[in-house]
């Protein structure tokens, strides 16, 4: 059953929201010992929300587009009254006082919130291995990473913990895990979705994005969360599209751009997947366009300099005084020494590396050569994409250079791990919407995906093309590796 089928069945009274929620909770119970994707499950709260929906349906009251649909939330997004850890010991024990704006929108639409999913600490990672609660495993191969930083969300959707999830994407953190776990993930246009109540990583890049098993399901979630928000100064009021209707539009006449330089570094099976998708879109009546992004190879280093610099500023708020981890107080402590020890104890190694690197890049003597230069290169990457998108309606390429890699493969080589974001960071630098769409399984039985990038606020084009890509695929069945683990009780 898809998210939309679940919502329709509940609205029609043929499925009770409580049954749907209990089934999702039972799935978490049986599967999460193998995946470690959940950091907090709110079973009682979810059942209460589901019961309220069932009562509304029985009373014939109007219900929302997600009424009774169980979903999960990345633990970077505040759900009022629930723990909010950002995957960090720094926020162990923190309880969010309020719902994030996107959570308020989900509640108004009737969604049932199952709990919070694991992530790389403060969303800093591409593998979900820096989470304070330990790595998440990929449901398609338990020895593989799920991708990150929204790895718990992607694994949860793939494993059937409800029907969708919200992640966040700063440099690929929705799209990469979506690709590795065989689900759909959307990074919306910068400003399309409110970030009020979302823990900040790099504020000129962060966006909240939906993840679900199908493109249409993702459109339903996105329709609920998209729109302006008075509490987020970066949110924008451009008109919202009819994203579900866009999934039904033909692609004939659309211009699909292929970036040739992006085909060079791919594993053979990802290369094949991109080219097969391109050919299928042309066969469906789209026209092809060869495009070049001359500065695309500079997107990743520019992205990391900018993200680390912004992170160093954003994470200055964790002082161990107002909230968060506080070191044991010594009689000789000053305010400064208390800050410094609290932060050194609370933040994990990758977060500390990024804070120090960002502080260095912003400091006197290095600012011009590093941070400022990265911002100038950002404009070159942005301008390349704008030029490309004047010659085509959507850019087709890979989401990741390969299928999911083994756990621990890049633990000791951060630069190799950073370079896994090679195809995703450009959209964040330019603020453009981008979607990862699954395109079947590769040689090792692991999901493969393609990425689509469109112009600002043209998410409708992504849903139109994404649905056409999906239509040509056999829908992925449940992940066999997880099923085998559950059956074997391993």
């Amino acid at each position, binding site marked *: 059953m898809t998210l939309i089928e679940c919502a329709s069945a509940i609205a029609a009274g043929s499925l009770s929201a409580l049954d749907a929620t209990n089934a999702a909770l039972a799935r978490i119970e049986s599967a999460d010992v193998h995946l470690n994707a959940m950091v907090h499950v709110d079973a009682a709260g979810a059942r209460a929300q589901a019961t309220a929906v069932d009562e509304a349906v029985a009373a014939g009251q109007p219900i929302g587009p997600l009424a009774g649909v169980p979903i999960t939330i990345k633990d970077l997004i505040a759900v009022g009254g629930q723990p909010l850890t950002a995957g960090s010991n720094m926020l162990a*024990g923190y*309880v969010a*006082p309020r719902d994030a704006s996107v959570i308020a929108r989900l509640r108004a639409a009737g969604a049932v919130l199952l709990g919070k999913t694991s992530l790389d600490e403060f969303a800093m990672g591409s593998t979900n291995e820096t989470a304070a609660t330990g790595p998440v495993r990929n449901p398609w191969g338990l020895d593989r990473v799920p991708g990150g930083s929204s790895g718990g969300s992607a694994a949860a959707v793939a494993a059937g913990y409800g029907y969708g999830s919200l992640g966040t994407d700063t440099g690929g953190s929705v799209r990469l895990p979506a690709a590795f776990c065989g689900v759909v993930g959307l990074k919306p246009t*910068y400003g399309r979705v409110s970030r009020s109540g979302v823990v900040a990583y790099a504020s*000129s890049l962060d966006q909240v994005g939906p993840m679900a098993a199908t493109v249409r399901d993702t459109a339903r979630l996105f329709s609920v969360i998209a729109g*302006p928000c008075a*509490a987020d*100064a*970066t949110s*924008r*009021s451009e008109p919202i599209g009819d994203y579900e209707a866009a999934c039904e539009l033909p692609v004939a006449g659309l211009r699909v751009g292929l970036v040739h330089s992006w085909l060079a570094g791919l594993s053979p099976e990802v290369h094949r997947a991109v080219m097969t998708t391109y050919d299928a879109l042309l066969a469906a009546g789209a026209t092809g366009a060869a495009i070049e992004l001359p*500065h695309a190879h*500079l997107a990743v*280093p*520019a992205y*990391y*300099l900018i993200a680390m610099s912004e992170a*160093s500023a954003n994470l*200055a708020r964790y*002082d*161990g*005084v*107002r*909230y*968060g*981890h*506080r070191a044991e107080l010594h009689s000789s402590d*000053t305010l400064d*020494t208390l*800050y*410094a*020890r609290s*932060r*050194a104890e609370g*933040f994990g190694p990758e977060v500390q*590396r990024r*804070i*120090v*690197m960002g*502080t*260095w890049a912003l*400091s006197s003597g*290095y600012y011009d*050569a*590093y941070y*400022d*230069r*990265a*911002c*100038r*290169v*950002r*404009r*070159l990457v*942005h301008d390349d994409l704008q030029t490309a998108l004047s010659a085509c309606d959507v850019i087709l390429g890979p989401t990741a250079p390969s299928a999911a890699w083994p756990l621990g493969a890049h633990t000791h080589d*951060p*630069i190799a791990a*950073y370079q896994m974001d090679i195809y995703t960071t450009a959209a964040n630098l*330019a*603020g453009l919407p981008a979607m990862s769409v699954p395109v079947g399984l590769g040689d090792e039985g692991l999901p493969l995906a393609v990425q689509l990038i469109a112009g600002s606020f043209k998410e409708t084009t992504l849903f139109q093309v994404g649905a056409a890509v999906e239509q040509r695929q056999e829908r992925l069945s449940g992940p066999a590796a997880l099923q085998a683990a559950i059956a074997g009780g391993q």
Partner: protein
Amino acid sequence: MSDAIDATAVADAARLARLALEPAEQQAMAAELERVRAWVSMLQAVDVSDVAPMTHPHEGAMGLRRDRVSSDLTAAEALANAPAQAEGHFLVPRVVG
């Protein structure tokens, strides 16, 4: 001035960032960050002298709301997550003589 990141550069940045790092941690981090610095230095090869820095995707379009007091967070709620508090205040080490 050399750009290379050594233990002294890490110690300076860590002090600015209020992170208490032991000397051995500074050494280890310096080696890691120098590799990152060398990698991002590929940006130095690009001529960006005529390119304006881009700090935000929607430049100049930030919306502002009215500067009004709201009751989003009560004092009790703000203090609820504090590691140490008393009599309606956050507790910190003594800051005056």
